[in-house]
């Protein structure tokens, strides 16, 4: 295979894996922001919590990697509902600023707690044999873990797409994102719907956090460091749009990976440049409502 094609395939493959991580972690944020217009800067903290739960379960209790991921997602999802009921709901009608401050305060507290419990050094996680090494796809070898991420991402995209487009609850969510007052007046309980999507979204973020350990490393600063990326995915994709979040995750994931492959020095430059260009042209993102 020629050198050029080889690099292109690597970029596409790694970019796709990265995009899937971005999608899984950001999709909940997009839907909750679309529903309530709530700026949740603690979303990264939920992802980080998921990551640390996976680390604790696999390292200290010998639980397998995949069961730990599921457990982390469920636990964080359940705990996030408590936060939503007691803290977030008080600020739905407040300004952007107050929401930003409350949630960034929560993120700081989460980072400090994680530093206290786990220390500032990045953690790793023991993977099962079938996720280590490479997998042969006929024409080339690829790292198994990234292949796993892509498959898992594709499955989740399908499930979420089905839930969004084909079920009753999905229809209600779409209605509420489009026009909240109208949805309420036809009898949809948007409040409860929001709690539900908030819990599911935070659970998915925790799953993403668990998946990120191997991909990016997990340290307490994760909560703020990658939050910026999640928010960018949401803003570029358009609030409350599944399709938009997926497209934004793909574009940003592949651009970022490509940028880092081809011009290591420029680092994160590409993601932010793409973000600025997209938002200047389409302020509400790819599929957001103007």
């Amino acid at each position: 295979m020629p050198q050029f094609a080889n690099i292109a395939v690597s970029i596409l493959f790694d970019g796709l894996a990265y995009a899937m991580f971005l999608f899984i972690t950001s999709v909940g944020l997009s839907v909750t922001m679309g529903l309530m217009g709530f700026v949740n800067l603690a979303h990264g903290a939920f992802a980080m919590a998921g990551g640390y739960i996976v680390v604790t379960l696999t390292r200290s209790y010998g639980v397998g990697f995949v069961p730990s991921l599921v457990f982390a997602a469920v636990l964080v999802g359940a705990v996030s509902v408590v936060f939503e009921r007691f803290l977030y709901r008080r600020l739905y009608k407040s300004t952007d600023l107050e929401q930003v401050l409350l949630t960034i305060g929560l993120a700081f507290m989460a980072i400090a707690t994680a530093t206290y419990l786990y220390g500032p050094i990045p953690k790793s996680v023991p993977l099962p044999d079938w996720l280590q090494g490479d997998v042969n796809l006929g024409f080339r070898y690829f790292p198994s873990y990234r292949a796993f991420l892509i498959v898992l991402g594709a499955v989740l995209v399908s499930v979420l797409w089905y839930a969004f487009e084909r079920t009753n609850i999905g229809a209600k969510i779409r209605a509420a994102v489009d026009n909240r007052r109208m949805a309420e007046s036809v009898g949809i309980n948007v409040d409860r719907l929001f709690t539900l999507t908030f819990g599911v979204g935070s659970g998915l973020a925790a799953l993403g956090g668990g998946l990120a350990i191997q991909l990016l490393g997990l340290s307490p600063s994760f909560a703020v460091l990658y939050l910026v990326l999640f928010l960018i995915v949401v803003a570029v994709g358009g609030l409350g749009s599944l399709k938009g979040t997926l497209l934004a995750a793909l574009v940003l994931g592949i651009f970022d990976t490509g940028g880092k492959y081809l011009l290591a020095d420029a680092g994160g430059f590409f993601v932010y440049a793409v973000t600025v260009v997209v938002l200047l042209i389409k302020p509400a993102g790819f599929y957001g409502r103007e």
Partner: protein
Amino acid sequence: MAASKTTGAPARERAANYLAKRHRFRLAEALPWLIAIAVFFIFPTRMTFGSQVLVMVMFALSLDLILGYAGIVTLGHAAFFGVGAYTVGLAAARLEWTEPISGLFAAAIAAGLVGFITGWFLLRYRGLTLLMLTLATAILLQETGNLRSDISGGYDGLPGLTFKPLLGMFDYDLYGHTYYLYVLAVLAVVFYLVRRIVYSPFGQALTGIRENVRRMHAIGSPVHRRLVTVYTIAAAIAGVAGALFTQTNAYVTLTVFDFDNSAKVMVMLILGGTGRLYGAFVGAAIYMVLEDYFSKLSPTFWQFGIGLMLVLAVLFAPRGILGVFERFGNYLSERKRS
């Protein structure tokens, strides 16, 4: 009766009187300045720290102008602080331009220019889009600096800068006494400017935009132009604060562009109280003193503390520490009257 009150010459006169009355200096306003001068005599060995506090006061004041008065929520205010800091740093390290006061002007112009250009593009957006765009601006500047680390020094920064004596006379001493008075004097000038701005009709227009943009559009106020103007001014002031930061520390690194720096200044302002001029003084001073004490004790504990303070501030004191005092004062005067 009610309608005739709001039209014609008397109304204009009352509006002018109102503005003039707000311009008048009140006695209590001398207090922060007296404290700042008292600190100079009481803590002669902590002057370097004192200068840093004053620099952050100025930085928070510039944010107050756009956040507190015009209602622009930004996550990238550190961009302008950083541009100012690097203007002075690069001028000293690469061009050997080490005269401090002309450096401040250069920093103000550079940061103001960046503020004008980015503001002109970004200020037509609101909400999450604006948050992301301001954040991305600061990170793009940081990445640009990192890309040309041959010029900027990258994350190692520009260490060991030296500056010419102030006005060609006052050299810098070990404890930073000169710096403290220098920063205090610059802060006084900047504060006077900011005070003039917020009590002017232009400042009133900004408050109007914060409270109700649609109505301001409806009465024909050039909203975008006003926002860009105030954004440029705030950027220039943040640039001066950044320049003073570089001059007092004698070094600068790319961390000045960090998201942490933008978040920190916002926390200070919120703690003190937004849209009330002296909130920046109270917030920055309290934050810096607490940070100095607690972060030596345990940085982790301190970070948890900031988080908790923010949550509590949003839930219980949305108008900051000064807001709490004001409410307490109102409560006392109510009781006295009844």
